[in-house]
């Protein structure tokens, strides 16, 4: 078993498992950049997974399933947007409720759908002749699916919008100082609604990826905590899509390696590895001056009320 085998399996599995994490993280970055902490990622993801599965089952079209997952995730996120932006409720509580609501609702609705094989799933692609490239071929052009590529393309686009366009400045301004943005004539509530909605769409899509491409099957609670990893990765990324990509794929690579390395290192230790890494990075991120440089949006999780600052 040569080193190529290790590299190929680690990177290709990292892409496959990291993609839903990355999609969720990209969405959460946008939401948090606008100042809204959404702890409902897990709930939006599972609703996406449920709706993608049922839609695909009924229409036999997995792409339609993914589309519906995105829409449902988006609509679901509006609950959080409404309570936290319009009603100015506590964002932590509202987000947590969204997670619980999503897990519960999908569990109840999904009862009859468990254990059903899906008639059609997102196809895995083999791109000739690129797949015959050494090492890179099997990683990128053999057995991945379109959503993986779509997500990879999304990263630079979302980064560009956030840091190089007027729209991005607007979003960041709203997240840093909503009062200032408001005085400049920016509609704070509208910007936040849009960002939360984007977060919902991406989290829903991530869930859809799980149930019609990655597994593919529906089971109650199948997101199994991925939404919380997304929250950690968002902090890990310093709210930057490029770092988010690195974080998601690094986490996924470690997750895969934790199974491959079992013959050599104690499995219990390996199981903790990806999470330990997340904690270590969080420690570094939250240290004094570094925090100033890369820190969270200043108005994160603070509802904006005109005339109060």
């Amino acid at each position, binding site marked *: *078993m040569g080193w190529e*085998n*290790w590299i*190929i*399996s680690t990177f290709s*599995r990292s892409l496959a*498992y990291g993609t839903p994490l990355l999609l969720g993280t990209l969405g959460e970055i946008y939401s948090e950049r606008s100042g809204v902490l959404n702890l409902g990622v897990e709930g939006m993801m599972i609703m996406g997974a449920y709706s993608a599965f049922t839609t695909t089952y009924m229409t036999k079209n997995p792409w339609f399933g993914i589309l519906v997952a995105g829409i449902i995730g988006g609509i679901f996120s509006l609950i959080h947007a409404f309570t936290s932006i319009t009603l100015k409720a506590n964002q932590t509580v509202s987000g947590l409720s969204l997670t619980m609501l999503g897990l519960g609702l999908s*569990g109840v609705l*999904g*009862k009859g759908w*468990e*254990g059903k*094989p899906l008639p059609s799933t997102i196809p*895995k692609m083999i791109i000739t002749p690129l797949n015959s490239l050494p090492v890179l071929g099997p990683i990128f052009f053999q057995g991945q699916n379109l959503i993986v590529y779509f997500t990879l393309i999304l990263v630079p686009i979302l980064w560009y919008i956030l840091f190089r366009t007027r729209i991005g400045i607007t979003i960041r301004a709203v997240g840093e100082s909503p009062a200032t943005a408001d005085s400049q004539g920016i509609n704070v509530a509208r910007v936040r609604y849009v960002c939360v909605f984007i977060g919902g769409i991406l989290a829903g899509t991530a869930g859809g990826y799980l149930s019609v491409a*990655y*597994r*593919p*099957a529906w*089971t*109650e*609670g*199948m997101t*199994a905590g*991925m939404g919380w990893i997304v929250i950690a990765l968002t902090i890990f990324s310093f709210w930057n899509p490029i770092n988010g990509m690195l974080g998601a794929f690094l986490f996924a690579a470690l*997750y*895969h390696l*934790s*199974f*491959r390395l*079992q*013959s050599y290192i*104690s*499995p*219990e230790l390996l*199981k903790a590895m990806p999470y330990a890494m997340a904690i270590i990075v969080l420690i570094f991120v939250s240290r004094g001056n570094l925090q100033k440089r890369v820190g969270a949006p200043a108005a994160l999780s603070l509802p904006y009320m005109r005339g109060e600052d």
Partner: protein
Amino acid sequence: MLTGKKITVVLSILFILSFTLASMAAEYVPGTPLKAGFIYVGPVGDLGWSHAHDEARRICEDTFPWLETVYVESVPEGNEGLYIDKLIQEEKCDVVFTTSFGFMDGTVMAAQRHPEKILAHCSGFKRTPNLMTYMADFYQIYYLNGLMAGALTKTNKTAYVGAFPIPEVKRHMDAFTIGVKETNPEAEVHVRWIYEWFSPTAAKEAAEALIAEGCDVFAFTEDSPTVVQVAAEKGYPSFGHYSPMYDFSPDYVVSGQIAHWEAIYLDFLAKVYAGVYKAHNLADLDYWWLLKEKAVEIGAKPGMLINPLFEDDLKAKKVNDPVLGEINVYDLVMKRLEQMSDPSMVFDPFNGPVYDREGKLRVPEGSRMSVYELTTMEWAAQGIVGPWE
């Protein structure tokens, strides 16, 4: 007018009365309607362990007109005591089944709290006068699956994704490995642990890791069809676990293990109803049911013992058995199944001599493992590659 004193008196009378009534209704009277509660560790839709128990529960309820059942799903290990109390006190259950190894100590304590009720713990080994244990064990089926896996592997590496390194799973791995070695002495069984009973993601990545190691036939212990699906994507054969998994990949599921918990539940509940088993004579009752009691079945789905697509491959592979002579693997599986289904169980996978992977003799020639030895098994059979603790 009611004074405070009168109210106190009335309340205390009611209080005492309710106690008397409660204790009168406490012990189950044979021949009267019976209520049984089931506590599951996973969701009933998981297609694995909990699902199989719930199927059995429904069969019992359909079979016995005098039986009413309730269940609680996804109960975390450690919280079983609360749910047992709830089932007994609020639901008025006469019999409570707890269906996970990790529920053992909580069930024992609950049995002591409710000495007048009948409890039953699945897969454990602690009993009390009102607590029996039961298990429909798969090790014979895993052995038969192993015979087929050994014949089907081309890389001489078969794979086993395991849930937790506990005796039950180790016993199944050992039995599987003994089967693999019997039809293919060159083959190995590569093992990965996921430390979850139900985790499709972990099962998927563990299976992918085994594929990267070069494994090409898959068996597993996890409560979802994930490993079957991952293997099928790559075109590798696999063996379903717990529920019929044929439908998830009809071209690649060779066979598998199917549980029939109803065999045990029907027998036990009928005997409780008849007054054979009461809340004071269960201390020595252990249902350890295998193929011959029909508590377990081998098959890709009920009635399909071996997927016809693999019949030719299995018939093409021949082995030399000291007793049976030259025999093809298909016939060998059928012969072994027949031997183990025989009431006297003329064959068992753990017939001596059996050596572990360190070369230590574990079962001497001419002897067979006892139920106690089987349920406390910790050693790895020869041919197992990978972590063991």
